[in-house]
């Protein structure tokens, strides 16, 4: 029962490098989310998706891109990493609206990214 799996768990980048974080869920959830967690800032939504092939901007989308080509996967990309993107990134998923399990998010274990 894997739930939400994030890879990689840790990554160190140099400024200007690019990378992709992968999120995979095996619960057939419609909705998927990417958050970043910073000290004193709590969780901030970067992008989210309400279904395969759809994405939308959250609170802090600048510098990030996402794709949801398959229902079970949600990719977060950094095209040109900046030190301000040093953070812990969490992926989450949930059932869509109309489901009794709607609104409850299942989170991955996190990906710690450091940009030098």
């Amino acid at each position: 029962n894997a739930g939400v799996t994030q890879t990689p768990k840790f990554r160190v980048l140099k400024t200007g490098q690019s990378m992709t974080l992968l999120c995979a869920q095996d619960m057939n959830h419609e909705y998927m989310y990417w958050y970043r967690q910073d000290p004193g800032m709590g969780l901030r939504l970067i992008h989210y998706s309400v279904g395969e092939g759809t994405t939308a901007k959250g609170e802090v989308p600048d510098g990030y891109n996402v794709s949801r080509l398959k229902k079970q996967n949600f990719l977060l990309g950094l095209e040109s990493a900046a030190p301000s993107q040093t953070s812990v990134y969490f992926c989450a998923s949930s059932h869509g609206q109309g489901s009794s399990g709607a609104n409850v998010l299942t989170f991955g274990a996190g990906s710690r990214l450091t940009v030098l």
Partner: protein
Amino acid sequence: AQSVAQPEDQVNVAEGNPLTVKCTYSVSGNPYLFWYVQYPNRGLQFLLKYITGDNLVKGSYGFEAEFNKSQTSFHLKKPSALVSDSALYFCAVRDTGGTGGSYIPTFGRGTSLIVHP
């Protein structure tokens, strides 16, 4: 627009004493309210939710929360704290109605609960 506030960055309590972690919210319609817990180096885990019905909601690990509409609060409580309850606690809200309705929950900044032996 929806928002949630956790006024305390840190709560300290002795083991065996009751604990309260505070949360207030702002929505234009009716709220769905949630508590999550995060242990060190882990993702967030769902504790409990209020959707409708009884204002006192019971959740995992002996936690409960009381929805108070007049005070727009949803405080997390536990009658007797354990050292193992030490963690970061997040309140979240989703506005279900009005022009500000959203399908996406907004999280508070989190409150660090420290239970002393």
